[in-house]
């Protein structure tokens, strides 16, 4: 029987505080004009009155820059030129207040890093050491479209606990043993009675029904990849694009990365950085040939990957969780919802 606990807003704040002795706790904090996830231990004050964080929580599991290996280049050193894994801290962490679209995003990204043939040690270790406490959306934004891509304002995919904001109280729905373990360490709160649970469920139903699936992606699976690729609209979609990395770096489902060596004197690091299909360097061959040398090819790649290639390859839905960050932050206002419509109606 699903366990529910109810917390007054103050109880929840102290409950989250209590988690600090067990987890690195990440909470949404106000930071200038927008909200970002911040570490509670750095004295940041949680603020759960927010739409969504400006940057996605992806960097908590998948940092933008990360040292993979260290090595010595000193001739005398017997291990010179041999790479050693950099020390890492995979101690338990908790993301409290993650929106369902961002939790869904982690599920969609996992198929890339955790495969039968290869496992990315850093992504998987951090992901598995993280407990996700989601906060349902009472007032989704006009640019949110999670219900169109397999998610929802109260979707439970990828979450260990789901919180319902009932105004003066939070109702916590335990979804996994990991979530149960977290709430046990959080202290406080009481068992929730049936009326509260029904109130929460009707809230969830009301908000979800107010978010019809407006972005059409249902027809994409059967579309021919070559027809989509040769579609006439790419030129117009891509014109405004300035090929910056904003959409890919804000996107919770983008995972592309680059590997770079950096040397300082007699030692060096092999570092992984986020990368973007928007950058020309991404596919530039040593010979100078670049299969995606032009802007139109790169913009097409971004949307074809998210709305067709990923869909065909992994059969997990589209590589988009409908968070709307790229729609809100693209300086040239290139809107994935419009591109999805163009592709779906081809």
């Amino acid at each position, binding site marked *: 029987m699903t366990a529910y606990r109810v917390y007054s807003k103050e109880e929840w704040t102290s409950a989250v505080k209590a988690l600090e002795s067990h987890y690195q706790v990440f909470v949404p904090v106000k930071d200038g004009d927008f909200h970002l996830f911040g570490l509670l231990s750095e004295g940041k004050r949680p603020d759960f009155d927010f739409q969504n964080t400006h940057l996605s929580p992806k960097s908590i599991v998948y*940092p933008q*820059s*990360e*040292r993979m290996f260290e090595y010595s280049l000193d001739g005398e050193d017997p291990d010179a030129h041999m790479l050693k894994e950099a020390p890492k801290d995979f101690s338990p962490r908790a993301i409290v207040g993650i929106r369902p679209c961002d939790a869904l995003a982690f599920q969609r990204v996992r198929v890339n890093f955790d495969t039968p043939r290869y496992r990315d040690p850093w992504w998987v270790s951090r992901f598995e050491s993280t407990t996700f406490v989601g906060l349902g959306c009472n007032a989704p934004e006009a640019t949110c479209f999670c219900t169109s891509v397999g998610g929802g304002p109260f979707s439970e995919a990828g979450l260990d606990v789901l919180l319902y904001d009932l105004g003066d109280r939070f109702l916590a729905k335990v979804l996994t043993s990991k979530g149960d373990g977290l709430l046990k360490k959080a202290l406080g709160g009481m068992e929730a009675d049936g009326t509260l649970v029904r109130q929460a469920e009707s809230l969830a139903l009301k908000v979800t029904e107010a978010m019809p699936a407006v972005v059409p992606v249902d027809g994409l699976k059967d579309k021919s990849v070559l027809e989509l690729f040769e579609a006439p609209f790419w030129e117009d979609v891509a014109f405004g694009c300035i090929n910056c990395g904003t959409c890919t770096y804000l996107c919770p489902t983008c995972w592309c990365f680059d590997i770079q060596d*950096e040397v*300082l004197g007699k*030692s060096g*690091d092999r*570092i992984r950085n986020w990368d973007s299909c928007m950058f020309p360097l991404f596919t530039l061959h040593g010979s100078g040939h670049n299969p995606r040398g032009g802007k139109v090819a790169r913009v097409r790649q971004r949307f074809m990957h998210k709305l067709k290639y990923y869909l065909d390859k992994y059969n997990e839905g589209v590589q988009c969780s409908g968070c709307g960050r790229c729609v809100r932050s693209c300086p040239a206002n290139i809107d994935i919802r419009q591109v999805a419509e163009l592709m779906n109606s081809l």
Partner: protein
Amino acid sequence: MLLKNLLEHIGLEPGRLHFSWISSAEAAKFVEVANEVNQVVEELGPARFLVKRKARVA
């Protein structure tokens, strides 16, 4: 001049960046400028700003 102003505007301590015009015939001036730069920089102590150490990454 633009580079010096910009660097110092964003926080490079004055005295870190020197410009001088010394022809190959002006040996004395070269010695004088070299000593002066050395003395000013030593007073400023080791440079911290814009000096790349081990990458500060996760």
